[in-house]
């Protein structure tokens, strides 16, 4: 698979503080890439740079090159809303909108101009099915999404992200607020979704990274220490710091 995201010499500052230093990484399409590392190492910050969510935070400055499908995402010709349609995001805490399940899923398509009820019905059903939550909610599409359990809410958020037909889905610790059963459902779902989507997932759970990811990137203190095939990185890490981290010596 060719690389869908290419990052070269990327640095990021929060005001005076340099949070990411010279990141170089190529992410292949239709696979799962796990970003691991201790808290505050910059992995979430990195993730949020990929769909320019960091634009929303005042004082963030980014240098270097981030290319999505070989196009610079900071280029003036890039429509950031269109970029975020292609690169969707699932957040750490499930954040469904306080509206009906149906309207939650339809929010993205409506944003991008789909008005026809029939078309929306199809999209809503397909997205919910793809996110493996259709059977649980099909009888209460008109009910408020906040009435769902945490795990269901998170799958709803994944369905909501799928509804705009993204190519890449960024997941920022999507299971850290969930119970083990919901977690395994999300993991199963991710493994299924990688047939059609590129998934980049920040996780604090190393077993999770081993279980589902194809590549793993290890971040430490704002630097990308090691990046490679998940089996290789966890069995024969080439950097001492990676080895210390994955064997639980710090972090």
């Amino acid at each position: 698979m060719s690389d869908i995201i290419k990052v070269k010499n990327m640095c990021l500052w929060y005001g005076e503080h340099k949070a990411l230093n010279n990141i170089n990484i190529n992410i292949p399409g239709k696979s799962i890439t796990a970003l691991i590392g201790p808290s505050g190492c910059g992995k979430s910050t990195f993730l949020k740079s990929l769909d320019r969510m960091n634009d929303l935070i005042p004082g963030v400055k980014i240098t270097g090159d981030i290319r999505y499908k070989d196009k610079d995402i900071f280029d003036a010709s890039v429509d950031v809303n269109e970029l975020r349609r292609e690169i969707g995001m699932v957040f750490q805490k499930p954040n469904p909108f306080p509206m009906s399940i149906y309207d939650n899923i339809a929010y993205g398509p409506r944003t991008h101009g789909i008005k026809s009820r029939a078309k929306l019905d199809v999209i809503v059903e397909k997205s919910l099915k793809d996110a493996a939550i259709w059977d649980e909610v099909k009888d209460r599409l008109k009910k408020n999404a906040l009435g769902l359990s945490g795990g269901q809410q998170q799958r709803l958020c994944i369905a909501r992200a799928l509804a705009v037909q993204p190519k890449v889905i960024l997941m920022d610790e999507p299971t850290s607020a969930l119970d083990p059963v919901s977690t395994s459902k999300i993991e199963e779902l991710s493994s299924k979704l990688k047939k059609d989507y590129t998934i980049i997932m920040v996780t604090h759970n190393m077993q999770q990274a081993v279980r589902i990811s194809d590549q793993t990137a290890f971040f430490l203190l704002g630097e990308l220490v090691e990046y490679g095939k998940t089996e290789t990185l966890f069995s024969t890490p080439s950097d001492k710091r990676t080895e210390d981290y994955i064997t639980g010596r710090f972090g």
Partner: protein
Amino acid sequence: MYGNGVSKARKIYIMSMRVLMWASVAVTCLLALFMIVYISVRGIPNISWEILSTKPSYLSGGIGILPDIMNTVYILIATLVIVIPLGAGAAIYLTEYASNKRIVAVIEYAAETLSGIPSIIYGLVGMLFFCQFLNMKTSIIAGALTLVIMNLPTIMRTTQESLKTVPQSYREGAFGLGAGKWRVIRTVVLPGCVDGVITGCILSAGRILGESAALLFTAGFAHALNGIFEGFSSPGATLTVALYVYAKEQGEFGIAFAIAAILMVLALVINLSAMLTGKYFKRRRNI
């Protein structure tokens, strides 16, 4: 046992504190009750269909408060129609768009200060600026504009506060789906805080209803009955101003109390509806 270790002095202290608290509760309740009963007793017998449905006439000496009721309605409408979009718009800009936190803080502080200024000063400024400088004469619209200035900080602050209660995660979620700024505000942020905005508006309506000092100089004392459009450009007394005029200038205390009773009921209705709409929207949000 538990109580054995407590000394006698301590027991007396606890008892007296309890008595004092009960006394303050009783005085507060009695005062409110007294006001309500007194106004009702003095006012309600004076309310008649005739007073409610006629205008006063110097020829027959009859007194009616229909014009004052209509003027109150006109002022309420005119003020709210102007102040809500203005205040809510300013609040949206300050909370969602403005990037210079220091300027926002200064504006918020200024608004807070403005809302503490005695209303007679608004009346004075309104008279000099709207009535004289802008040549609106003494009129309902000049009064309404004065009330707009007076209520702007309230609407702005309540809207801002409720905008701040909308979780950042909703905004992130919507931006993450590729929604533009205005769409995020319109579809996710505003519906999430509409209860706060409405509560603010209703409380402002209550304040408009109760305002007299700012209207004395700007909207005048006239009791003429006008349709809505000529009403705006004519002078006219609201119920509260009429109360002042009848009590102070004409010694018609019966009428004054009748108006007071009506105002009291209106205040009750307004507060109730503020409470109920707040509850309604909160429930809708947290199903």
